[in-house]
């Protein structure tokens, strides 16, 4: 299930080719060539999982389906509903809904005793000053369903909270919508990439995030693996993620978790039942043959043998290029110079000339990605920063 807005199309289509499986691509908009494809393309109302399941069921009468794979937060739910309707391997629908909805997720995690920030659910149309008085600072304001840290803001006092809630209203644009007010957890942040197989979490990678994520907004930048967090703490982080997976009821498929740790131990910040976002998965390779994450996901969904879940020996990293400012992108200079930096594997500029760039928290679309691989996490991180320094975004 590849929404037209996903970055992951090429990686999944290529993985299917590598494995040699027949692929049906489901998107929410019709492909220009859909009429000519014999079972290779289908348009589904991805915003309506039940209707999608009905249409997928009818489609499967003509073109039998062996597995359904969602690639992001929303299609993970649709995939679960379709899998249930077709009797295919998949996650329980309630687990995918809980993973998608930040409040449901926190309620289940809290009930299971998973360490998470204290939280409360409030309405965007509630009186801001009243909520602001009940909040412990610093806090984090979060929309329930936006992804990529869009709309997530830290507030350090009443004034900051009032400003953040007003700003969130203009981002969400649903007057009756709810949002989360969460305790800000200071500490170091990591991301855990995993694959759940028959309820058991297999860790594929733990990424360090060397740039502090202390707010006021939470734009991601660098991910580097392997993590340099001490082994005992890594084990505690994995245990925390594992407890979260079980608390939500996730039984199969990829997960991506964001965790923090401090002197009180690990804290689960977010867990998503999908693989790592953007084009970041290109940084992961497994086994001697450099199998991709997408190939592992497809093989797992189809019950095919997986050559290895062991990440390669080399360190690897990706930088989600920070949004350089608001305006219309005219050109990007220095790409060749950035690519020439030792250890840099690729620089992908995904924003196109003429595109309007919107900084966080209103925006969330990174203008590109930088990839590096090397002997140690330190040299990889240094290469990413060096390459980024050579890029110049001309915005008007």
């Amino acid at each position: 299930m590849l929404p037209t807005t996903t970055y992951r199309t090429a990686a999944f289509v290529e993985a299917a080719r590598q494995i040699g499986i027949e692929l049906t691509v489901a998107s929410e908009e019709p492909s220009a060539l859909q009429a000519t494809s014999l079972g290779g393309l289908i348009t589904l109302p991805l915003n309506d999982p039940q209707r999608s399941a009905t249409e997928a069921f009818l489609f499967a009468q003509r073109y039998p389906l062996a597995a359904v794979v969602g690639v992001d937060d929303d299609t993970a739910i649709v995939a679960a509903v379709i899998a249930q309707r077709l009797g295919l391997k998949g996650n329980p629908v309630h687990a995918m809904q809980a993973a998608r909805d930040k409040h449901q997720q926190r309620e289940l995690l809290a009930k299971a005793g998973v360490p998470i920030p204290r939280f409360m659910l409030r309405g965007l149309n509630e009186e801001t000053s009243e909520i602001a008085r009940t909040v412990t600072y610093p806090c984090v304001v979060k929309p329930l369903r936006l992804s990529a840290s869009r709309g997530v803001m830290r507030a350090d006092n009443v004034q900051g909270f009032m400003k953040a809630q007003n700003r969130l209203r203009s981002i969400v644009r649903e007057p009756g919508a709810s949002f989360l007010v969460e305790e800000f957890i200071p500490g170091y942040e990591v991301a855990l990439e995993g694959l759940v197989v028959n309820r058991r979490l297999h860790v594929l990678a733990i990424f360090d995030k060397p740039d502090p994520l202390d707010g006021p907004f939470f734009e991601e930048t660098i991910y580097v693996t392997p993590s340099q967090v001490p082994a005992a703490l890594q084990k505690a982080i994995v245990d925390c993620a594992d407890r979260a997976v079980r608390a939500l009821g996730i039984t199969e498929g990829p997960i991506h978790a964001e965790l923090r740790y401090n002197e009180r131990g690990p804290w689960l910040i977010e867990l998503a039942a999908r693989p790592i976002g953007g084009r970041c998965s290109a940084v992961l390779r497994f086994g001697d043959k450099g199998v991709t994450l997408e190939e592992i996901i497809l093989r797992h969904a189809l019950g095919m043998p997986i050559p290895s879940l062991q990440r390669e020996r080399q360190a690897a990293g990706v930088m989600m290029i920070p949004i350089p400012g608001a305006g219309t992108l005219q050109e990007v200079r220095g790409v060749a110079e950035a690519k020439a930096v030792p250890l840099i594997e690729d620089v992908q500029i995904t924003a196109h000339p003429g595109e309007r760039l919107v900084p966080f928290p209103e925006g969330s679309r990174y203008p590109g990605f930088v990839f590096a691989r090397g002997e140690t996490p330190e040299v990889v991180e240094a290469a990413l920063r060096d390459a980024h320094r050579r890029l110049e975004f001309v915005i008007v």
Partner: protein
Amino acid sequence: MEAAEIRITAEPIDNQRCKFVVSVPVLTGGVRRFTGADEAKGSPLAEAIFAIPGLAVSELIVSGNIITVVKQSPTPPWQAVGKPIGAAIRAALASDVPPVATSPKPPGAVNDDALYEQVAKVFDEQVNPMVARHGGRVELIDVQDAVVMLRMGGGCQGCGMADVTLRQGIEGMLAQLVPAVRGIVDITDHTSGANPYFQAAKK
């Protein structure tokens, strides 16, 4: 052309495929595809790239100012082999001999000219009228050894669903209508697409 004046940009497509965009034309008026060192004989640029130690090239496609190198395996990484490939390209272009020879046509070979006509008809009559609805177009560049080289433009260039159009649409159509086609190579520079029909928007 002085080798120092030639600028080469590596644009990896994935672990095994990488485009090298050269600032000067390498082969004008067509496309050459090489699938082994034997085929490369007589084309200094291809000979040099196939001879790079440890690279294990399985396919090389030269069109205009773009050289697409396909490796047999994800390792070594492009970062490690980019420089020797760049040096091979520069050396070939600095020589007085044409870097890529024109395509020989061995007797009994697949009739690429006939395939070209058939594929062009499918593109003109079926593919392009449909992709035009999304502001796109697909240009047939050449057919070599029954492999179709194409370039996507307009809304298809840089479109988030270009791979779906190519693999789930065009490839399937050609499999039905021109079954002698053995494969498709997209030589589009998708990074320079200025008006993609579908644009990735999430993290």
